[in-house]
């Protein structure tokens, strides 16, 4: 088990290192200068001073080493478009907003997805099954941002029940978190439905029933426990989906989170911020993947032997 974790950890660190390298050289290869915004004429001295300030006067190789060293300490440099603000400060300031929304979306996805999956796996009714399958298909096919826009029109503009800007009260969470969770709900419904269906046909379920166990315990203790594995492994990719989702949902609902910051930094060509946020997102997704894989391996020892 320890060997497995160490191996995964090393691969994760390698991935992060490669991402950092790609980001660094990618940003260097981008057209346009970071300091020539607003078409202002800049004297040669100011330009040189600015280059010196951001370390751009050194050779690329040296810049790269310095960048990696600093990034290792969590120092991503100073934002270019927001003068005087450290990238790491921006992350610390904005990340909690996204995290709150993300956690709400995460739990909505897990609970609603599992509930729908369980109901459709156990229900014999063709109507219920058809309805849930249709919902799951729609959920996968309708992009979250369009769903968000449609629900905005209905519940906020037409009916006026829910607010659409910001993230102040619990009411503000409803629309964005559901839109963010939409595709994950559908995926979890599909995953848990098919795995629970498989499990419920197994011999040990029949055995548990024949021993007189109450049906509800058969489902929870013997069925669900064994059917959860695909859902656990899905949690890693789900975080990736939530993070990319936050970019558009936060822009749409004007939520001052890290996803909105990322899209803004791209529009502003704020290279240091783009680099810092890319690394931050990458690191989070890698860590979440790692956690979900480790949990899956803990739950089901067959996994690490299989790999």
């Amino acid at each position: 088990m320890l060997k497995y974790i160490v191996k995964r950890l090393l691969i994760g660190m390698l991935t992060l290192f490669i991402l950092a390298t790609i980001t660094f050289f990618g940003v260097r290869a981008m057209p346009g200068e970071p300091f020539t915004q607003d078409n202002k004429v800049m004297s040669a001295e100011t330009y040189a001073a600015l280059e010196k300030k951001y370390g751009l006067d050194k050779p690329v190789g040296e810049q790269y080493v310095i960048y990696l060293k600093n990034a290792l300490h969590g120092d991503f440099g100073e934002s270019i478009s927001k003068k005087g603000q450290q990238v790491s400060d921006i992350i610390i300031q904005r990340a909690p907003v996204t995290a709150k929304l993300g956690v709400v979306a995460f739990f909505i996805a897990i609970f609603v997805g599992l509930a729908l999956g369980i109901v459709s796996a156990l229900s014999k009714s063709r109507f219920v099954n058809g309805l849930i399958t249709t919902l799951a298909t729609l959920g996968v096919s309708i992009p979250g941002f369009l769903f968000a826009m449609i629900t905005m029109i209905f519940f906020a503009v037409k009916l006026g029940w829910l607010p659409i800007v910001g993230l102040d009260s619990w009411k503000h969470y409803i629309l964005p978190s559901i839109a963010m969770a939409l595709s994950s709900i559908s995926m979890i419904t599909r995953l848990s439905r098919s795995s629970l269906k498989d499990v419920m046909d197994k011999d040990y379920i029949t055995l548990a029933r024949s021993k007189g166990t109450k049906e509800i315990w058969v489902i929870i203790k013997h069925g669900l426990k064994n059917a959860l594995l695909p859902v656990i492994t899905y949690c890693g990719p789900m975080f990736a989906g939530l993070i990319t989702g936050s970019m558009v949902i936060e822009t749409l609902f004007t939520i001052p989170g890290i996803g909105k910051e990322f899209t803004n930094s791209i529009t502003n060509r704020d290279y240091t911020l783009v680099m810092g946020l890319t690394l931050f997102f990458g690191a989070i997704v890698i860590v979440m993947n790692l956690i979900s894989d480790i949990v899956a391996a803990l739950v089901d020892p067959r996994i690490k032997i299989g790999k």
Partner: protein
Amino acid sequence: MSQIQLNDEMFDKLDDSEKNSEFIAVESKTFFKDAWGRFKKNKLALFGLIFLAIMVLGAIFVPMLSPYTYEGQDLASKNLLPCLAHPFGTDKLGRDIMVRVMYGARISLSIGFSTAVINLFIGIVYGGISGYLGGKVDMIMMRIIDVIYAVPSLLYTVLILMIFGDSITSMMLAICLTSWIQMARQVRTQVMSLKEMEFALAAKVLGASDMRILMKHLIVNALGPIVVCLTMMVPSAIFTESFLSFVGIGLNPSIPSWGKLANDCRALIFVNQIQIIWPVAAICLTILSLNFIGDGIGEALEIKR
């Protein structure tokens, strides 16, 4: 040893019903005819195919035949509701929405289909080599995939778009660079299991080259899952493009892709909701149709995914 008693009753004439029992009533079907027959029975898949066909025809012909262009403004007739002259209505600058949506279909569909085709080639080459050679080569190639896959593909896509600008070509490139992985994995799994089959061994014994075995025998037999994977790639490319253009970090704003059209509508949610329907419906129904078609093909070819 007892002898069998033969008598006349045992030599009765066959009646007609028994004579015809071996008769083949239906013309024998090829594999693809059979699959098409099953595909046709799937109503959703058929609906998807029809909708997609309409969309493709509309994308080709509507901008050609319509009297309006996608950027032609007519301030005298702005924000019109759907009417005879403008079936989808007009937007705030008096541009015909139908032409704009169909022009967007050109962009979104061509991005979707061309990235899928490019991915097909990269995937077959990469996955084929990795699966066929196996061993160390396979391990290294798979580790490379793991490393790329570990990070949300959107991050790479955004980086590439920033480096190469916001043209349609760089959007295709950006989507391709990350989405070929799925195809490569699919091809690899198929090749790995197929190369153990006897027909692969037979080809090898007959002296076929590795290249020939891979392309003529293994890939051809893996076509079913590959086609399903291919159909599923088109909607995800369309999704990525519309997602990025919707947030305003995708294609150049002058290009009326579906994402951009939906983005235009964002400002209108308080004023003019009817205009929002068209791009939203176009994106959702196209992605839905393609998913149905993919599922239908998978079912018709009896592929378990």
